[in-house]
């Protein structure tokens, strides 16, 4: 009786909708605990689940991990088969799979995170990373002592360009003399490349590096920490990305003194957006076909809040607030390309 899945689903779907609004997500290759957007999305889903007294599993909330590109569609379909009411595809890589499956499974509802799919049953959830990066750029431009700043990207793409461009704009806005050196690791998983690039950047006098390189960024942190241990007097910083990466910047000097080199992080609150959308959909307001852009205004983009703003001077904090205001008011439009 397995072949009759399609019919069964519709019945079950109807029943399900009455008791609980269940949600689930499919990760990209990064996995559910990538300390980045997958993890953040999962946190949002968990929060929603707890708030609504749901259990992990069918009929509640769940996630499926993809080991590679080919798994996205299988996982999405599995969730459709498990009758989840709202299915998130996390990461721009799932765009193709969602587009296709949404066309086939017209009764199911999907959300694509970080990309756009034009289908009536899909909501596209994107973020204004350029705005957050702009603020990070403001911080960097004001904090740098050497006027040399670095940007390390993962793989060149539209998405990462948004980070790069926004960051450079931010730096230039407050410190036209500062120079931003841009390098790409060619991968989101090559920590050795990240470390080597960081080594060359810090070696050339750069004192702040903003990374948008996922796992390759691990290498940036390790290089910065090691340089700090070697020479505790040197001021050098890393700006984290996606999540508050404060913890990743912890280190200990030879003398046993603890320090932290995460200047700030460009935080992208996927969790906020994911939960927000789930709540909306639950009450029947699923904005199918729309592209939702979450930014500073929606509290979904920004730099790491207190207490992890300890490295920022009051002056910097004021300036950041100032520019944030300008962006909100539309006085500044941060480019994406």
């Amino acid at each position, binding site marked *: 009786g397995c072949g009759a*899945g399609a019919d069964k689903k519709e019945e079950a779907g109807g029943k399900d909708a009455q008791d609980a609004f269940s949600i689930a997500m499919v990760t990209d290759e990064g996995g559910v605990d990538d300390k980045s957007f997958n993890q953040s999305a999962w946190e949002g889903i968990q929060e929603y689940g707890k708030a609504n007294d749901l259990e992990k599993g069918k009929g509640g909330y769940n996630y499926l*991990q993809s080991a*590679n590109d080919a798994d996205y569609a299988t996982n999405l379909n*599995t969730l459709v*088969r498990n009758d989840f009411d709202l299915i998130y595809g996390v990461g721009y890589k799932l765009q*193709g799979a969602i587009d296709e499956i949404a066309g*086939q499974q017209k009764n199911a509802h999907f959300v694509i995170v970080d990309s756009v799919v034009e289908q009536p049953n899909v909501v596209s959830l994107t973020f204004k990373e350029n705005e957050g990066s702009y603020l990070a750029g403001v911080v960097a431009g004001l904090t740098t002592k050497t006027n040399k700043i670095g940007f390390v990207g993962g793989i060149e*793409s*539209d998405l990462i360009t948004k980070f790069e461009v926004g960051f450079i704009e931010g730096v230039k806005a407050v410190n036209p003399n500062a120079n931003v050196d841009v390098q790409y690791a060619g991968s989101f998983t090559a920590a050795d490349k990240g470390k080597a690039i960081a080594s060359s950047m810090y070696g050339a006098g750069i004192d702040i590096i903003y990374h948008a390189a996922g796992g390759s960024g691990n290498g940036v942190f390790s290089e910065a920490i090691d340089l700090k241990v070697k020479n505790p007097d040197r001021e050098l910083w890393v700006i984290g990305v996606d999540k508050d990466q404060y913890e990743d910047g912890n280190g200990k000097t030879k003398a046993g003194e603890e320090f932290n080199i995460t200047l700030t992080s460009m935080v992208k609150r996927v969790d906020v957006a994911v939960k927000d959308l789930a709540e909306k959909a639950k009450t029947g307001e699923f904005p199918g076909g729309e592209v939702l852009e979450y930014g500073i205004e929606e509290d979904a983009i920004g730099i790491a809040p207190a207490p992890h703003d300890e490295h920022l001077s009051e002056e910097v904090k004021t300036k950041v607030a100032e520019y944030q205001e300008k962006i909100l008011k539309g006085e500044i439009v941060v480019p994406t390309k």
Partner: protein
Amino acid sequence: MNLNRYMNLLIPIIAILLGLICGAIIMLVSGYNPIAGYSALWYGIFGDSYYIGETVRQITPYILSGLAVAFAFRTGLFNIGVEGQVLVGWLAAVWVGLAFELPMIIHLPLSIIVAALAGALWGFVPGFLKARFKVHEVIVSIMMNYIALYVTNAIIRDVITDNADKTDNILPTASLRSGFFENLTDFSRMHNGIFIAIIATIIMWFLLEKTTKGFELRAVGFNHDAAHYSGMKVNRNIILSMVISGAFAGLAGAMEGLGTFEFASVKSGFTGIGFDGIAVALIGGNTALGVIFGAVLFGGLKVGALNMPSEAGVPNELVEIVIALIIFFVAASYFIRLLLFRFKKEGK
């Protein structure tokens, strides 16, 4: 003779059983329910027409990458560069699929052929360097993998698209998608590529076992000197072997580009199809029929594994472990032979 045949069949079956038993023990020890785990696995492979379709979809490129590795092995070469050849084949297929407007009868074959040619070109480099400069094919192919990864990414980003992460979808005239299979399997991505994979298997078997060219390629693989002595062109055959192997790999890429995905995307790492192809070929004893067997086993387990975390809470890495153990047991068939031998003796 007869006994040998029976052994050759029995050994992989015993290897699979042993692998599964070890997997069950691991599940038990780490607090999972092996029965639930394996039923989830089973369901994920055969449970539903959708999953069967997906399994076939996964098997398709595995057959071709397995053939690529096996073909090279049979001719004395280790093509560890299948991964890179898959990538360039994938890109080439999509490129042709996007760039031309042609009737399907021309467009689809053209896309497939160009993919094979691209893979062949990528295989040509290590083949040529080995023939001409005696450079070890293993290093060159490892390097070619990385070059393929970065070059295809750059082409997708800067040449085919304007700094996008993926290309548009190919035109329907170049697609391997099959409405028939989609209906049959409830929207799985099973596509017509499976026919190409099967045809390629037959070609490999026929070419290697039945033709004079195959005779030459095998002779060169076993003994360069004797092949040279008997008037074969050794260098040309080395290159040809890598080219054919690369072409199979390019086809595997076309399966992904024209069938499963219908687009090419920027990749952060390797697809795994090429590296898994090594295991597929080796499980299959580097024969054409064996490759099919290996691909079915491998593709089935990989697709089924996706169902294990959600249905049974078992991490899908367990399947990776089981696959590894099966490969071990197949490799150490001497051990199984010994076991069987002892078993028989005691039985008497």
